[in-house]
């Protein structure tokens, strides 16, 4: 893309500017400090070069004031950089509540992405300009890392759990997407493009190729196809297993007396390892769906469960 030679990557997200400011401060600090020390050392080299073989300089013991000065100043500078960076980082951790999710499954050696409306892509991501976008990631095999240099953001994809990152694109364009965590033979080939489109272009893109079903619809279909509804009521009373209406985001009590919040990670675990955290009042009878469902389908089922509203007079899970 673009020029043959550059020293500076494009900056296309809301926090790219902040990070770059700190980055360039550090570059300046490194340059000044290194050149300064080397210059002093070279000056001493010349000025105090040995002039005769039996030269014997007078002793200088050391100087406590010097030691304190060059311990405290670096310490203060270091702490300043620490607070500066941590401050920026705090803004990068938590996605704003209005973020639109994109579900990503990483596997050797491709990115599978799906938008809430069901539109899915491979190694390409289309996002509208200025929209807070949250990437929720799972891995089907090994560690990967979702990296968009132009957005200055990156996060590992860890098998067995969900990780996420968010960004707000600030510039229309096409940017590189890389896998940054070594993942085997074709690690270098596990890359793609992020297209930041204007609102209008994005709408056109979305409608240009309508998906058969949204993620929620796909989730509902999987819910029925896999006979989840035999035991788990989606809209009615508690059956063999806990009913799921309005359960998302609530906390439930487990057999061992602990409580757990029903979130993406808990639902995923309960489908893959049903016996790990059984809700109080139910028998551990559910089989694992590890071989029947893949990570992407789990994400669709989660999207579906999120939509289930509480029914009057019913409570999700057990009282």
């Amino acid at each position, binding site marked *: 893309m673009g020029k043959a030679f550059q*020293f500076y990557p494009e900056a296309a997200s809301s926090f790219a500017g902040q990070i770059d400011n700190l980055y360039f401060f550090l570059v300046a600090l490194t340059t000044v400090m290194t050149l300064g*020390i080397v210059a002093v050392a070279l000056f001493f080299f010349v000025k105090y070069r*040995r002039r005769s073989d039996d030269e*014997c300089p007078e*002793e200088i013991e050391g100087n406590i004031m010097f030691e304190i000065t060059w*311990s405290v100043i670096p310490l203060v500078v270091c702490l300043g950089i620490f607070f500066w960076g941590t401050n920026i980082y705090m803004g990068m951790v938590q996605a704003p509540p209005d973020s639109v999710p994109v579900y990503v499954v990483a596997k050797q050696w491709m990115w599978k992405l799906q938008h809430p409306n069901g539109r899915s892509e491979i190694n390409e991501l289309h996002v509208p300009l200025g929209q807070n976008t949250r990437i929720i990631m799972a891995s089907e095999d090994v560690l990967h890392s979702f990296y968009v240099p132009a957005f200055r953001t990156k996060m590992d994809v860890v098998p067995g759990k969900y990780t996420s990152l968010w960004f707000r694109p600030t510039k229309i364009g096409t940017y590189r997407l890389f896998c*940054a*965590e*070594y993942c085997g033979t074709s690690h270098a080939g596990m890359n793609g493009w992020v297209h930041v489109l204007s609102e209008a272009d994005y709408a056109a893109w979305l409608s240009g190729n309508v998906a058969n079903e949204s993620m929620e619809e796909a989730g509902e279909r999987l819910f029925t196809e896999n006979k989840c509804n035999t035991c788990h009521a989606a809209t009615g009373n508690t059956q063999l297993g806990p009913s799921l209406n309005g359960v998302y985001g609530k906390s439930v009590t487990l057999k061992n007396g602990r409580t757990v919040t029903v979130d993406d990670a808990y639902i995923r675990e309960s489908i893959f390892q049903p016996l790990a955290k059984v809700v109080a009042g139910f028998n551990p009878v559910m089989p694992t769906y590890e071989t029947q469902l893949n990570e992407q389908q789990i994400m669709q089922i989660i999207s579906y469960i999120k939509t289930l509203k509480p029914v009057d007079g019913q409570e999700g899970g057990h009282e």
Partner: protein
Amino acid sequence: MSNDTSSPKVNYLNNDYSIKSWLLTVDHKRIAILYLIAISFFFLVGGLMAVLFRFELATPQGDLVSAETYNKLFTMHGMVMVFFFLIPSVPAVLGNFLLPLMIGAKDVAFPRLNLASWYIYMLGGTLTIFAAISGGIDTGWTFYTPYSSTYANTAVVTAGIAVFITGFSSILTGLNFLVTIHKLRAPGLTWSRLPLFVWAHYATSIIMLLGTPVLAITVALLAVERGLGFGIFDPNLGGDPVLFQHLFWFYSHPAVYIMILPSMGVISEIVAAFCRKRVFGYTFVAASSLAIAVIGFFVWGHHLFLSSQSVFAGMVFSFLSYIVAVPSAIKVFNWTATMFRGSISWETPMLYVLGFIGLFSIGGLTGLFLANLAVDVHLHDTYFVVAHFHYVMVGGVIMGYMGGLHYYWPKITGRMYNEFWAKISFLLIFVGFNLTFLPQFVLGQLGMPRRYYFYDAEWQTLNVLSSAGASVLGIGYLLPVIYFLYSLKNGKIASQNPWGAKGLEWEVADTPPDPHNFHEIPVVTEEAYAYAKEAH
């Protein structure tokens, strides 16, 4: 003590020429030579691999070797360089040779364990070579699970066992040094009189003792997991791949200090000898070694900022990583201050000090980028990281090691190396090194991830620069092999103390030393580097 050089004196080299006397020696000086030979071999093997994959990276396409081969090359390069060169380099060669001489002892505390540690090292090295031949290993030297435990099709178990075994060589070396420094110091050699080289090795041996066993158990668990499906790092059984990263870096970050601290010790010795001055702020330089050893154990999590480690943990590790930067800065300032009003000789070892100060400053300061939570998000796992740790490892550790090798060459062999070629070699190394790794900082900032077999065409210019630098660097490292070997037969015979340096190893022990180091146990009456007190 020693008289003129023409009379053939008995020394540790000429007292017995048989092969058996070398392979079964318990003399710390001969064991140091055995290590020197083995380490040089592994350094050349590791370097050759680097040159190969740098050639591959000269073009954006993958054309010289296959992707599998490329992955195996950088993995083996990392493994060989870290475990078989950098970690043992200064301690096992210079430390082994010099510690007893510097503290006025006849040998290390456990000479047979010392020999055993070399054999263990060789066994681990042989297994690594075997792993390389029987399928290679392509996990990266970090062995991250679950790729290493489940998905890789290469000789992971063999390589893991090799690392496990080699760890014990490191443990035995550390144990030997710790006890030697505590119990075998000559009368009068108090802690505050110890050469800074000894202090640095004391701090290093503590890290070796506390860190290495954790690495050993971690790779053992990895081997069990891969061989028997044991599950602690396997998400399918509820295990956690990130736990592996914690355990791995609990050793492998302090291991960075195992590598750099001894080199810093060498730099202190050279600065003193070639400025003819006591090291400025002796106490602070000694204490900073210990501070680095202790704090260094609590910063490992800065390798895991993006691993799904908690935000709070990230903040704590970032904070501590900034704290550990300070003692290193103190050392650099003190060495520079030592030169003030010194009598600076421009011989090769001192040039390496200058190189060390410049390159290590860059290596250390770029660490500030990566210890930063926000900036690390962008730079993590890019070429910026590669450049950063090569500035510390090559610009720091190897500069110190090379400087020490030149400084102590006459002590070890009784011959002088060729000063002219040594300076040429230093220049080639310095220029080649910067040419190789400076462009990689830029590549990292541009977003080029590490361990990439092919890359975007726009990055070719910088990659070509880097590959060209690697070739210059390679030649720079080959030159010393030639002139050092040449000097063994043809070098000028070294005088007792060619640099006019202070210290028991130069002033009391013969050059080259007697098999028993000292004819009688020396008594120490002054602090280290008492140049001004010479008062002729």
